[in-house]
């Protein structure tokens, strides 16, 4: 298994299956953990950082977290490989861009990954397609227990699991659910949904987490607090209340659009597909925007000649690192626009 093999498919989070997959793209849970008896990363000497990386790499590989795992020495990886992992949500942008000794353990089916020496010594994450937090939380607890059997984590009687940033203290648990909300965006009701999210104490982010803009109508909702509630309570709220609410809003907006303005929807969807099939130069932002509308069309059953799987794969394969890996060469931005357009025409069955 090599990194390049990843580019053959869309990975777990874009498989396009699982409950409520018309609106919920993926469910992700992460845990922040630090070794007891060690300073947090920014206060470690260079030697301590190297020791941590070597020690945690050994412990995680010995723990057997998944049938088959891949260890990536992120510090030694090429920029393109690091970017590829970010695009696949296997490591964070922060992790890709840091300058410390660091690595990532990745289950080859991409349902789990562990970042070593990110903001905390360990960031464990589990990913599932659709709304599947019940399985995700069970899986992450299992991995956490396997690791805890080999390493003592910093823990405080009062504050729980200790983290470098106090906004993660306690459970260290962050749930992120990725939603596709094109109809709410089209009807302008997205503001109302955001206000509702705010009232539910949720953070809203773009496709690639903190500090990123929402592109292609994808939004991530995540819990802001990690202390004072049990892991089960945090997850339960997402399953029972928050996610169903967003799904309900979006579905209502979709059926409303179809009832009142089916023609306008068809026009938008068909034009988007037509541009994707005809463009000779296209940026990844425009691609995302158009694919988002095509995905809406597929989900509403207004477009039958493109599959959901294809659309999901294209979201990923047209991004800069994936495009270059798939084509097997490094390309400057303007060359990418041309290559991307060619790739899209080929995959969408146009001339």
């Amino acid at each position, binding site marked *: 298994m090599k990194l390049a093999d990843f580019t053959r498919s869309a990975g777990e989070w874009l498989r396009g299956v699982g409950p409520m997959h018309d609106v919920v793209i993926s469910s992700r849970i992460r845990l922040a953990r630090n070794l007891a008896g060690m*300073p*947090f990363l920014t206060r470690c000497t260079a030697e301590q950082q190297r020791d941590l990386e070597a020690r945690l790499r050994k412990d995680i590989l010995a723990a057997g977290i998944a049938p088959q795992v891949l260890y990536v020495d992120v510090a030694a990886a090429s920029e393109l490989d690091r970017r590829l992992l970010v695009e696949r949500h296997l490591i964070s942008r922060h992790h890709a861009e840091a300058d410390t000794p660091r690595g990532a353990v990745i289950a080859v089916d991409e349902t789990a990954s562990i970042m070593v020496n990110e903001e905390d010594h360990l960031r464990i994450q589990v990913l599932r397609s659709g709304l599947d937090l019940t399985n995700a939380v069970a899986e992450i607890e299992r991995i956490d227990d396997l690791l805890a059997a080999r390493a003592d984590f910093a823990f405080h009687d009062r*504050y729980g699991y200790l983290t470098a940033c106090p906004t993660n203290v306690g459970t260290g648990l962050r749930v992120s659910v990725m939603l596709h909300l094109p109809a709410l965006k089209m009807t302008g009701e997205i503001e109302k949904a955001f206000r509702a999210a705010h009232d539910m104490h949720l953070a809203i982010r773009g496709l690639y987490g903190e500090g990123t803009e929402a592109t292609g109508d994808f939004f991530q909702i995540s819990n802001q607090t990690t*202390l004072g509630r049990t892991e089960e309570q945090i997850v339960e709220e997402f399953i029972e209340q928050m996610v169903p609410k967003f799904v309900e809003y979006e579905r209502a907006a979709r059926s409303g659009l179809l009832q009142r303005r089916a023609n306008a929807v068809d026009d938008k969807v068909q034009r988007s597909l037509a541009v994707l099939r005809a463009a000779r130069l296209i940026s990844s932002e425009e691609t995302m925007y158009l694919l988002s509308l095509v995905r809406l069309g597929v989900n509403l059953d207004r477009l039958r000649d493109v599959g959901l799987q294809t659309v999901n794969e294209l979201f990923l394969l047209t991004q800069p690192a994936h495009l270059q890996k798939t084509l097997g060469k490094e390309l400057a931005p303007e060359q990418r626009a041309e290559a991307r357009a060619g790739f899209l025409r080929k995959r969408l069955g146009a001339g």
Partner: protein
Amino acid sequence: MKSECDKCGKPATVHLTEIADGQKIEKHLCEDCAAQEGITVKANLPISQLLEDFILQTVAPGQSTDVKCDVCGLTFSEFRQKALLGCPNDYDAFGQVLEALIQRAQEGATQHIGKAPAGAAGRKKHGTILRLRAQLRSAVGQEDYERAARLRDRIKELEES
């Protein structure tokens, strides 16, 4: 695309197209105006800003808040700048100031009620190890290698106990 905010003329970062009654309305707003309009939610304030607001509200001008962790050497004002703590001991060393901040960031909560690692009883030794590591670091810095070697042995002994 229009690049200035409709309201204040600052660079626009939020671009929105609304369709109401068949009319297309385009809005271009800066981050602050978008948040005011409720279009974007500045719900997740960066911790650095949270810290800044908090310090301004609770600390009288001229009052010294600079506590220092005697294990990792981080001061509270350094924490203010980077928003990252230096070691587990900071959670005790920064005492009430940090507690009040956690309370604010965590919607009032200051007590963990979730999972705890098995064998949490052995935790006291980790505090000792953390201290010994800090001493080791300064011994190495002072080129006192004999002391450093003794400290290394002691750390190893404790870790394996």
